[in-house]
């Protein structure tokens, strides 16, 4: 909200620099976001009097002037055709920043220096309207009124010596959405009470109630409606001071009547509305809800469809305003208006918010009512506006206020316990200190007991409804920085501190293994999210089509990352991500939160070269076995030894091959090469190998505490064996047989060679294994090992249709 310093000073006397004001108000909870010092804009500009004007000796179009600027007389060269002796003019002194250079095509600002103009020295500049940034007129200098006093700072002359602050008002502080409200807070800083505007009305003898009537049919939604009747108003443009005021806080001037309602709004914070009384059928106001689907045209000429809980202000025949939101076109003040019904009402905040949301119509009025207006302010607002309309539009104010207020709202009274105040804030304030702190913000306390106060909450503080609200006020006015910063907080270390060590260790391991961690936003285009193979959850109000659905797998998002990197020439990729995927377990019941399932996944991505191309290194692309190696290493790093890979032939999934990972007998994830059509859908033409694991499956199987197994006491014996088998026989089937038959002496089996070529023929392959035998209780003798090897050879030959090679 824009706040004018000059305007504030009408209610509280204070002297603060803009920097001080910013600091002090911010420390009270009214964050001053920025400010504009209008006086600074016209620093080094003064009123001058042209004493003498002569022709420039060397240039016909230029004049040489002697100008009185108060303290001295300056020589100034001027090019304006209209300059003449005796004029009062605007002088830019040396150092002045001309906001708008009318000779520059872009109108850039420039600084006045003393310059020689065609050989004659000049100590300033006489300014045009355009150069002063006050309008477009660049035809000549601006000539001021003869009464202007030379030497007067220009900002003072224009009445622009103001600072306008942009203050961020939190949603709880509706009372500060006005100059009076902000002034009250300034009063806290300078320890002064505010003075409200002095209102004196000259009422005519005719009672307002003779002319108009107000009836509330829905007192829950509209607890108060106060109105005055004004006659014989003369609609005209507002005087300059009123226009300037409104402009300074960002409101456009319309006419004297509308401007007064806006002025009073910015002053008191209470929204008002002026109806053309002659357009109100029966000169009647009836406050009631609309009928569902009813249409109504608001002031902005838009037709609105109403709901059955929309509160309407109606006349004898029709709706004339959406209560607390916006007036209607049908009863708008126009240039021909002579009689006015001026109203200030109070509306239920939740209902206003619903209406405003539903209509998508946020107005100054709705903004204030939904945050909570002051029910006592209706009278002040309507009187203040009537007074100004009388002054500015010659209005006749009829006698009395039509004030419909069925149930008077008494100020709330809250019991506040002194020990509670101190124990929340961590201070030891006395009862008297608390009383005087609260008094600064007009919260009046009565001592109830030694430990208790009964605090009366004025109606403008709708945000204070219970003890804790009062405690916050005590802390705020006391000053947060005056509260001790207790750096010796007692911490109980007897409790177990739970952390997600597993996730951290996965990260650290993969980073050590040369992977870059990526993080991506879970929202994707629906078609992309769907690539995960599961129906994705869609959001109702996506920011954009690219962010309309939640991922069901980390893979499609990662492929988009791969795509981004390929586009930027980065081809060799080792990436990982830990993130959630989302599914709806029971699509029949999407309203039940329990049905939304989130699962943490770990994604590993390999693409491009196996090793960065370098001197003396063979170059090859990564393949499934590289990924298999990474996955196996990862699983064994976390002691997930009881895992197994399950191979599928014809997968209808994200990868081909698809290799499932089973950890402790439970599905833990899968890996493989991304299917061509999936990669293609995301415009990725490179081969991308991906592995997606369930973090919880890994975490559950994670053996954190390992027990030491004693190292073998007796040496091991190594033997090699090679077999020729059918080219289609999986090596795993051979390895499995070796492991099974080799027990208990066989400790390790490793495939060390595989060969298809001349010696084997195209239909056969040779596979060679190294086997390590060992006994726990003695040194093996050759006969034992020979027997074990023989058993293995026989079993493999038999079960795998293999021939041992000698």
């Amino acid at each position, binding site marked *: 909200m824009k706040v004018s310093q000059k305007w504030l000073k009408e209610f509280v006397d204070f002297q603060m620099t803009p920097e001080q004001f910013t600091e002090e108000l911010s420390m009270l909870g009214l*964050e001053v976001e920025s400010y504009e010092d209008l006086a600074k804009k016209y620093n080094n500009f003064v009123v001058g009097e042209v004493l003498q004007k002569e022709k420039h000796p060397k240039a016909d179009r230029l004049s040489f002037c002697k100008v009185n600027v108060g303290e001295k007389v300056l020589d100034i060269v001027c090019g304006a055709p209209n300059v003449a002796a005796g004029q009062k003019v605007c002088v830019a002194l040396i150092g002045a920043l001309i906001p708008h250079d009318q000779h520059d095509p872009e109108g850039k600002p420039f600084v006045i220096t003393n310059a020689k103009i065609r050989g004659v020295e000049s100590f300033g500049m006489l300014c045009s309207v355009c150069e002063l940034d006050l309008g477009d007129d660049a035809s000549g200098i601006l000539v001021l009124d003869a009464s202007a006093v030379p030497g007067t700072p220009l900002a003072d002359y224009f009445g622009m010596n103001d600072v306008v602050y942009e203050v961020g008002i939190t949603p709880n502080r509706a009372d500060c959405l006005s100059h009076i409200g902000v002034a009250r807070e300034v009063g806290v800083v300078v320890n002064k009470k505010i003075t409200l505007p002095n209102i004196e009305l000259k009422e005519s003898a005719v009672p307002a109630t003779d002319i108009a009537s107000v009836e509330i049919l829905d007192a829950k939604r509209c607890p108060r409606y106060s109105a005055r009747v004004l006659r014989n108003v003369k609609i005209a443009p507002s005087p300059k001071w009123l226009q300037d005021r409104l402009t300074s806080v960002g409101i456009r001037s319309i006419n004297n009547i509308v401007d007064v309602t806006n002025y009073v709004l910015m002053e008191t914070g209470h929204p008002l509305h002026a109806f053309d009384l002659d357009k109100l059928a029966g000169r009647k106001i009836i406050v009631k809800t609309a009928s569902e689907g009813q249409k109504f045209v608001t002031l902005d000429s838009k037709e609105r469809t109403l709901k059955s809980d929309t509160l309407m202000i109606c006349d004898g025949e029709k709706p004339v305003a959406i209560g607390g939101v916006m007036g209607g076109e049908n009863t708008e003040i126009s240039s021909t208006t002579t009689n006015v019904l001026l109203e200030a009402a109070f509306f239920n905040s939740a209902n206003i918010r619903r209406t405003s949301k539903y209509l998508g119509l946020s107005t100054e009025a709705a903004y204030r009512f939904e945050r909570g207006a002051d029910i006592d302010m209706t009278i002040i607002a309507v009187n203040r506006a009537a007074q100004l309309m009388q002054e500015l539009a010659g209005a006749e104010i009829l006698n009395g206020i039509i004030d419909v207020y069925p149930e008077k709202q008494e100020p709330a009274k809250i019991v506040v316990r002194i020990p509670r105040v101190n124990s929340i804030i961590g201070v030891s304030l006395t009862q008297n200190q608390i009383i005087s702190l609260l008094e600064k913000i007009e919260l009046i306390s009565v001592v109830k007991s030694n430990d208790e106060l009964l605090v009366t909450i004025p109606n403008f503080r709708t945000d204070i409804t219970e003890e804790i609200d009062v405690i916050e006020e005590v802390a705020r006015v006391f000053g947060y920085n005056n509260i001790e910063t207790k750096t010796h907080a007692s911490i109980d270390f007897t409790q177990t501190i739970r952390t997600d060590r597993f996730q951290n260790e996965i990260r650290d391991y993969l980073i050590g293994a040369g992977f870059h961690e990526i993080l991506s936003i879970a929202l994707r285009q629906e078609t992309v999210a769907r690539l995960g193979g599961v129906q994705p959850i869609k959001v109702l*109000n996506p920011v954009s089509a690219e962010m309309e659905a939640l991922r069901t797998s980390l893979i499609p998002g990662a492929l988009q990352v791969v795509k981004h990197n390929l586009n930027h020439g980065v081809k060799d990729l*080792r990436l990982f991500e830990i993130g959630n995927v989302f599914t709806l377990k029971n699509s029949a019941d999407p309203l039940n939160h329990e049905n939304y399932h*989130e699962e943490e996944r770990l994604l590993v991505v390999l693409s491009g070269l196996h090793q960065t191309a370098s001197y003396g290194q063979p170059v090859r692309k990564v393949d499934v076995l590289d990924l298999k190696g990474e996955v196996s290493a990862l699983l064994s790093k976390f002691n997930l030894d009881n895992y197994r890979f399950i191979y599928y032939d014809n997968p209808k999934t994200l990868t081909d091959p698809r290799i499932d990972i089973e950890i402790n007998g439970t599905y833990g994830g899968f890996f493989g090469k991304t299917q061509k059509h999936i990669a293609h859908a995301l415009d990725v033409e490179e081969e991308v190998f991906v592995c997606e694991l369930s973090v919880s499956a890994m975490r559950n199987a994670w053996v954190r505490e390992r027990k030491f197994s004693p190292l073998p006491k007796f040496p091991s014996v190594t033997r090699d064996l090679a077999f020729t088998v059918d080219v289609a026989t999986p090596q795993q089937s051979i390895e499995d047989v070796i492991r099974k038959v080799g027990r208990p002496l066989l400790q390790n089996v490793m495939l060390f060679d595989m060969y298809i070529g001349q010696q084997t023929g195209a239909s056969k392959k040779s596979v060679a294994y190294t086997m390590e035998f060992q006994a726990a209780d003695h040194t093996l003798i050759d006969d034992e090992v020979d027997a074990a090897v023989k058993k293995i050879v026989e079993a493999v030959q038999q079960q795998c249709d293999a021939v041992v090679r000698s």
Partner: protein
Amino acid sequence: MLEQVKQEFITALQQAETPQQLEQVRIAFLSRSGKIAQLFEGMKTAAPAEKPALGKSLNELRQFAQTQFDEKKLVIEEAAKPKEIPFDVTLPGRPKHVGTKHPITQVMEEMVRIFVGMGFSVEKGPEIESDYYNFEALNFPPDHPARDMQDTIFIQDKILLRTHTSPVQIRVMENQKPPIRAVMPGWVYRNEATSARSLVAFHQIEGLYVDKGVTFSELKGTLVAFAKQFYGSSIKYRFRPSFFPFTEPSAEMDITCYICGGKGCRICKHSGWLEVLGAGMVHPHVLKNGNIDPEEYTGYAFGMGIERTAMLRYNIDDIRILYENDVRFLKQF
């Protein structure tokens, strides 16, 4: 005779330079029919009395010749060997893959580490939340303008993507008994257009401490301790009153802008201060919603954004680059 053979041998050995020449020396002197062997042959005809002395001299000669020969052989063989290519130590080392941690994770881990050191546990909650946990239990009544502070992405009328990490506070309170001390990091979502300054999703870290006798004064102490650890012990700080529906009194904490040192710059909007977190005493309604008696227990809560902190720390001026996952970007961390 013996001395003459010795001199001949020495001369011949000196002159031999190739393995072939050396072989000729061996044949001439050290072979079975060589000159030294012939000397031994001649010993047979010597007088028996001279034999022992002669034998000794001959053995010495043979030993001498063999030793000399072996030494020379080594030298010649070494010289005859093909020269090795000199090892170039300036060749590049064999490349290794170097992984990196995402900058957001780094910042978050550091924050978590500091709080864990202060006795806070780490808790998590769902990203898809119900209206109850995200708003109502946190004292955002329906139809309250405070809800406008956070533009929400909805999945259903009462199901949404959490707009802050604060709902985890309620979940933690429901499941634990005081004393509760927890930090809750994670993704949050807002319905905001993507720009250099804002994204639809970002990270927050939430903190909660509920116990007997927890005060605002202690809240200040903990957060100042954190800020000094995280931003440096020389920072200045201030707490300003603010508004969050779920805390009261509520505060925002500013620290001296570490870009300009408090003099005022573009980053701190010329105020000299940087807002780093929001905090406050847990509102009694919120404690009640977490099944905790607000008369018996009090608590404080705080929350901060990770992205802005990371951006300031690493001098990143466009938030969008964080989640493009460009390896050229990631490599820098």
